[in-house]
Structures are given as C-alpha cells and as structure tokens.
C-alpha cells in the first residue's frame, strides 16, 4: 500500500461555478489503477465525484481521461506508474521531489458534462457517423455468411480492435487547432471499411475523405493518438493507409495532399535530398513545365507563400540560386544508386511488411526458410511468394 495525492479537475454544471481543482489523498497498492484511486476517493471522501466506468479491464472503453496530461484509460494506468510520471514531469521544471500530485482531467477536445464525464455524443459519435461506419456490400447480401479469405482481413484487424473510448480524440493535436477535423477514431473506423474486401464503396469513401478539407490531409502526423490508444489501433497509421490507398487509386484531391506526396517522392528520386522550392511549386502546380493545372486554391497558396519567401531572402536564409529557383538543387553524387532503390521498390505493386511482427527471431526465422515476401493486398492470399 502507498499514499498518493490525486488532483482532479472538477466541474459541476448545477453550481453555476467554473471548473476547479481538488486534491484527494488515497491509499492503495501501486499496481492498482488510477480509476481504483478515483473510486476510493469517491467512496471515502466525496460521493459526488463523477467518473464514467464499467468493466475496469480496458474492454468497455468508458473511463477515458487525461492523466498527467496523457490521454488514456483510468483502469489501464497503474497509479504507481502515474506517480513516477508526475514526479518526472515535476523534476523537469525544477520542482523535483517525490509524491507530486497525479493530475487527472476530463478528456480533451470534447465538452465536459460533469467532473470527468465528457459529452462523447457531440464530438466522438458525430464524427464516427460521419464516415458511414457500416458495410456497404456488393449487391444483395448472400443467403448465409460472406466467405472471405481469412488473410484478406489481416490488414483491418488493427482498426477492428477499437473500443470507442475516445482517448485518441482527446489527444488529437489537429483537432485542437481544427474542431472540424474528422479525427483519429473516425478515420481509423473508415479504414476498417476501406480495407474490408466485402465493401463495395472503397473508391467513394476514399474520395470523400480526401476531398474534405478536414479529412485525411488535415492530420498533422503528431503520433499523439498512437500513444494514447489503449488497444494498439494506431489511428494515425490507419490515416496514412487511407492516404496511400487514395493515391493508389489515383484520387486527385483539392487539398494538394496527393500532389504534395507525389512531388516529394519524385524530387527525392531525382535529387536524393529535398529541393524545398521545387516541393512548394510542385505541391500546388504539378507539372508546371508540362501541363499547367493549378486550381484556385493552389494559386492562392502560391501567392500566400510569397511574403514568407521575401522575408527569407531578406535575412539571407534563402539567398542562393538553388533555394530560389525550383529544380536547380544539386543531386547526390550517387544519385543512380538512389534511383535503383526507387525502381526496385516501385516494382512491387503490393505492399508488404507494414506491420512490425515482433522481436527478431520470434516470427522471422520461419520466413527465411520459406521465402520472404508477404502481402497484405486483399486480393492476394497471405501466401509466400519468392522474393
């Protein structure tokens, strides 16, 4: 048993007062959870402390909250670990010492109803419904079950693990800046259907999510949702898969998302290192030397970048020919070697090895004997092909 101080951000709408902090002293084994600590405080000190919970085993997804600023589940975070983090954070800012308060707040990016209970409906569920979270099958459903290759479902097992707790939404840094961002939970859910071989509307789904200014290209790639998710869904990775699939089926979005990606890839293929001016130009006006096709938004973006460029020239930051003129950037001495790598990797029409399979030796040895390539392409069963 050990003593802990939990500092809870409280809010009671009926009081007419704003939110405030309250500390509770609790006494429990370090291996027990932060939720156990909260329930003890509720039991012994203040029955009005509101927290949503049910299974206490990281299955129901009810007890999403922020613990020392990190979004996660109260029931899956050991109070001893939370104490270590609180002390580490205090030491970083010179406060130091042990036994610092463990700070507990309601989830972010959503309204608070009372204490740690947030309104999941207005943000989380509304966004989930936005992505049509059900199967849109080909034609009439079969009389009995759908028959699919088990391997063709591997690609979506990660997104299927979601328990709808909202921890990723709470942690999302794009949503902090743009409340309309569809967000990590809903986009991971979208990939669950985009990657499903039974779904007939893959192209329409991808077009919808790529065209929306608050869709897949509004994700700022900050990894917050990956660390927040208690079930290993890695929502950001699912968003990157949506982008990759959108590119593969040739969707040209109005947000320059696909153009930016292709411009980046082509520049590295040609030069080896990044030509920033060319990236800017090609992201907004791809193929300017060939067919000129910037849309209105792209022209606005290009013009909008001029003041920044002028400031860069003034300070000397961008005062050299290869930074000012797109395409003048020198290529690497061994650029042919880089090109060989591109030619080889682009040959594979299928993706493989997207998932970390575990530590060396656990799963890999078997593959060495059989050959090496494995596919996650839904049309290709997960059999071994020769490399």
């Amino acid at each position: 048993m050990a003593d802990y101080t939990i500092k809870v951000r409280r809010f009671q709408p009926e009081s007419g007062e704003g939110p405030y902090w309250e500390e509770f002293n609790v006494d429990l084994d370090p291996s027990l959870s932060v939720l156990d600590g909260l329930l003890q405080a509720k039991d012994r000190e203040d029955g009005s402390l509101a927290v949503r919970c049910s299974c206490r085993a990281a299955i129901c997804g009810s007890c999403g909250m922020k613990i020392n600023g990190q979004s996660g589940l109260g029931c899956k975070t050991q109070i001893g670990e939370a104490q270590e983090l609180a002390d580490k954070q205090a030491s970083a800012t010179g406060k130091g010492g042990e036994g610092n308060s463990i700070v507990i707040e309601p989830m972010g990016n959503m309204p608070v109803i009372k204490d740690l209970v947030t309104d999941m409906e207005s943000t989380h569920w509304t966004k989930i419904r936005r992505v049509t979270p059900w199967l849109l099958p080909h034609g009439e459903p079969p009389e009995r079950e759908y028959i699919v290759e088990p391997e063709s479902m591997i690609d979506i097992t990660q997104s299927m693990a979601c328990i709808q707790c909202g921890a990723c939404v709470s942690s999302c840094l794009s949503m902090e800046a743009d409340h309309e961002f569809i967000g990590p939970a809903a986009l991971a859910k979208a990939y669950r259907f985009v990657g499903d071989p039974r779904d007939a509307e893959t192209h329409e789904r991808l077009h919808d999510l790529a065209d929306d200014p608050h869709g897949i290209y509004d994700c700022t790639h900050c990894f917050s949702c990956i660390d927040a998710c208690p079930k290993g869904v890695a929502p950001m990775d699912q968003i990157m898969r949506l982008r990759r699939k959108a590119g593969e089926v040739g969707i040209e979005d109005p947000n320059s998302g696909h153009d930016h990606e292709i411009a980046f890839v082509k520049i590295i293929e040609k030069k080896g290192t990044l030509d920033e001016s060319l990236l800017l130009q090609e992201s907004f006006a791809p193929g300017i030397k060939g067919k000129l096709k910037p849309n209105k938004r792209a022209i606005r973006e290009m013009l909008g970048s001029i003041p920044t460029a002028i400031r860069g020239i003034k300070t000397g930051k961008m005062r050299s020919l290869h930074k000012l003129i797109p395409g003048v950037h020198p290529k690497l001495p061994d650029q042919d070697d880089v090109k060989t790598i591109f030619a080889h990797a682009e040959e594979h029409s299928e993706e493989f090895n997207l998932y970390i399979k575990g530590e060396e030796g656990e799963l890999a040895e078997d593959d060495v004997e059989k050959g090496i390539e494995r596919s996650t392409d839904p049309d290709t069963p997960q059999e071994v092909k020769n490399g």
Partner: protein
Amino acid sequence: MAENIKVAYWPGCVSRGFTPELHGSMALVAEKLGWELVELDRANCCGAGVIAEHNQELADTLNARTFALAQQTGLSMMNICSTCQGAQSECQQRLDADSAYRAHINEVLSGQGLSYEKDKGGFTNKNFLWLLVEDYGLDRLKEQVVRPLSGLRVGPFYGCYIVRPKERLGYGKHPDRDVYLEKVIEALGGQVVEYDGARKCCGFPVIAMARETSLRQAGTHVGDAIDAGADCLVTPCPLCHLNLDMQQPEAAKVVNRDLGLAVLHLPQLVGLALGVEPKELGMAKHIASTRWVEERLSAVAA
C-alpha cells in the same frame, strides 16, 4: 573522463536548405565540444514520413542505405532533426524486427556495396540532443559553459517525431528523453519556461494541405510561450523551426495577435553558452528577431 565523441553525421535536408544556420552552428558547436563529425555527404533524404506514406518498402530501403553508409565508417550515427530521428527510427525498427525483411532490403543495397546490419558494433542513430545528454553528459557540458545563460527564460519545443511513439523511440531504456531539453537548458544556466506547447505539434507537416490548421498550431504555441514569460524557444527540429520561426508572421495573422518570439536551434543555444557569437551562429538569418536574446546575454561577458 569519458571518451571523445566521434560519429557519422547526417545533417538532413532542411539544415542545408531553408535553415542553413542550423548546419553551420552544429559545426561550430562540435568544434567547441571537441566532437568529430564524419559527414555522410552521400546519404539521402529520410522521407520525413511522406515517402513511407507513399511506399513503406521504399522508405525502409532509403534509410537502410543511410544506416549502411554510416556503418561503413565504423561509427554510430547522429542526426540534428527530430523528423529525421522519427522517420529513421521507424524504418530501423521495422528492419531490426525481421531478419528476412532485412535480407530482402540488403539484396537491393548489395549492388551498391552496402549492407545494413542490426546492432553492428552497437550501432545507434541519435539526435544531437540524445547524444549530448546520454553520451557526452551534462556534467561535461556544464564544464564547457563560459557564458551561462543566466536569466534567459527558455521554452523547450521538442517536435513530435522525437517524443512519440514512446515505444519506438527507446523510451523503455531512456525514459527521460522527453525532458532532456529542460535538463540541457538548466545545464547551460538558463531558466526553463513551462508552457502548454512543449511536446505538441508545430503543424508543419500540413502547411501545404491545411494551412490554417498548421499555422494555428504554431501561433498558439508561440503565443502560450510568450504568455508564460519566455525570452525564446529552443528546438532540436528544423521543420518545427520553419513553422515556428519562418512562418511566425503568418501564424500571427491566423491566431490574430502579435507574436515576435525568437526560436533557437538547439546547437545555437548550446553555442551561445559555449561563447560563440550570435552572428557566427547565424542568428541574423532568423525571421523572428533574436535581438532580445542577445541583449539579455550581453550583460554576461563571454
């Protein structure tokens, strides 16, 4: 005294592009610290997550090539960019987890006389920040300080790629990696400013696709740091620097307030404490003026 630092050095693209002051100041600081940097001038872009988004195997092979070039020197590798750190760590994790996949990638590299070997001679790839704290040591750093940053209030800004995901970035073995900037600021004699944005996103990855989302993030963090009393920010990531410094006037328009906060690259902050002049560190190349920082330090003789 511990061994001197000698590493294969990957400067990245942006440090030689729109933030040339970073590459220059790193060279000066290495000289002051007595570090030997063997520059990987044949190495390629890390892909910054964008190439991985396009084709994972391509990103893995490109970075395996960089690791192999570093291993040819017989040294571990250093980068000066959070984004390089994150993008390269992602590929390294995938390569290290699967010997068959590694063999497949090495087959492509073998034509170039290259091969990436897991853990070869204890091979690591570390950002300057990690190397400074873990290999050089804060005590040795303190001994080198000739101009303590006394009274300078510095807000740390890490960059996402160097703090998340924890499991990939070695936080199991080095749990304090997300408080190293604070430790370095203190070791240099400065004062850490606590504000909301230190480990948040600068917004740079979506500057071309979602400009307002991007600049709102940069502007919010710079504003929060100003409100918390910061004299400047410090970052180990040049991409963060682009959004926090180069785009700062544009970010100010989006968040609708005056900004004007100096943003230093990590080697610049270290360099100031080691007695290097602001001009030599390229601080005049910044968009947000660094004059206030220089004035505060001029009271302390170098």
